[in-house]
């Protein structure tokens, strides 16, 4: 017995339409593509209006006048469409960029630099049995040589005998990428299996 739920039929149609691209570009895929883009645009507009209402207008109505600033900055973004007042558009962009960078910079220094160095520096190269020692040495060599690979302004570090160090780093990174690639492919297969199970169980009700 096939499902009688219209939402299941719609989901099944778009699953098949999207998958049909695997064979070649066709009118069914085009329909799914344009529908997806259209729906996404509509959803974005609705969410945008909702955000303006929830995080701006409601606050002003509650007496928090500072939120007028949000509207002023938002309206200034549209100044880019005006030939004369084009420059005003730069202020909200500068605010957005400065805000984003300010929030992320401390975390970047802490998590991307200090924590990483502390982890590498605190791992003894010998200990934990033979496998532990091999693991520690591979991790240490991988970390140091990979960082070496990403030095761009000291050309002498990439020449002669020293040039082998970044090459080792590159090969170790490629090994890691291979493992990551395999892992992700497996998870994508899992997602696709989910769609196949949906078609067979929820739509066609065969399993």
């Amino acid at each position: 017995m096939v499902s009688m739920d219209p939402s299941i039929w719609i989901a099944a149609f778009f699953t098949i339409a999207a998958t049909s691209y695997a064979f070649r570009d066709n009118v069914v895929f085009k329909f799914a593509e344009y529908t997806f883009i259209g729906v996404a645009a509509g959803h974005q507009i609705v969410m945008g209006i909702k955000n303006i209402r929830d995080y701006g207008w409601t606050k002003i109505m509650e007496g928090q006048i500072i939120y007028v600033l949000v509207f002023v900055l938002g309206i200034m973004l549209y100044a880019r469409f005006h030939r004369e007042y084009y420059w005003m558009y730069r202020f909200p962009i500068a605010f957005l960029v400065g805000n984003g960078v300010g929030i992320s910079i401390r975390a970047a220094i802490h998590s991307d630099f200090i924590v990483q160095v502390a982890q590498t520096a605190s791992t003894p190269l010998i200990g934990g049995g033979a496998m532990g020692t091999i693991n520690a040495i591979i991790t240490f060599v991988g970390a140091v040589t990979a960082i070496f690979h990403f030095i761009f302004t000291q050309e002498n570090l990439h020449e002669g005998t020293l040039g082998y160090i970044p090459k080792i780093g590159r090969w170790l990174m490629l090994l890691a990428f291979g493992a990551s690639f395999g892992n992700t492919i497996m998870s994508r297969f899992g997602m696709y299996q989910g769609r196949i199970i949906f078609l067979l169980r929820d739509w066609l009700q065969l399993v």
Partner: protein
Amino acid sequence: MAILTPGRIVPLLALILVWVAVYIAINMGKEGKIKVRRIAGLDAIEEVVGRSVEMGRPVFDIIGMGTFTDSYATQTVAGLSILNYVAGLSARLGAELIAPQAKVDVMPVAIELVRDAYNVEGKLDELNVDEQLPYLSGTQFAWASGIIGMAARRRPAGNIMIGPFWAESMMFAETFDRIGAMQVGGTARTYQIPFFAALCDYCLIGEEIFAAGAYVSGDPAQIGTIAAQDWYKLAAIALSIVGALLSTVGVNIIAELLSR
């Protein structure tokens, strides 16, 4: 409340040192004292655009769907620098550039950069912004399906993807590979690099995209920050080696100092 919080003293010092290092490095960059080494993938970009001209088919340049306000802003800036470079090459050599956009705050900057590049080459009248830099969607997979559809119909000869990418990276790399486009891919998003490494003809790994962006832009500020980062990387190597050796003999002083 204490002014200096335990566990945040070293990050504060590191931050101050970053400011100083970047300031010094930018000044050195302005004086032309810093040179960024050439990256293999960069030479390939010219080859990609040249191939598009020879085959009479478009070249795609995708900068990802990062914004200026997220933590991937630097990758977006690198992608924009490359877009400017590709636009200049396309205008000079006569290739049709297509650069679909996903983010409303990045799009005007991308348009200005492409317009500027065409203007420098005296080919501004050949640029059609609506056709060449279309806004598709700010939603990840709607944007991805739009690009996949465009790629299938336009069959570009080349594709350059440099910037922040998420799960759509494999879809793009696979699609463009399937239609026979020559590809240069690069991102600093660790989980997406393997897809570019596996499917692109040339791959820029991680921070290579920043160096590439700085290299093609010639901007002393960007080149200076690359140099400052290099100094930090050398410090990281030194601290890691000394710390690991000391840790092996039971002295864990480096990690303890860094945790303050």
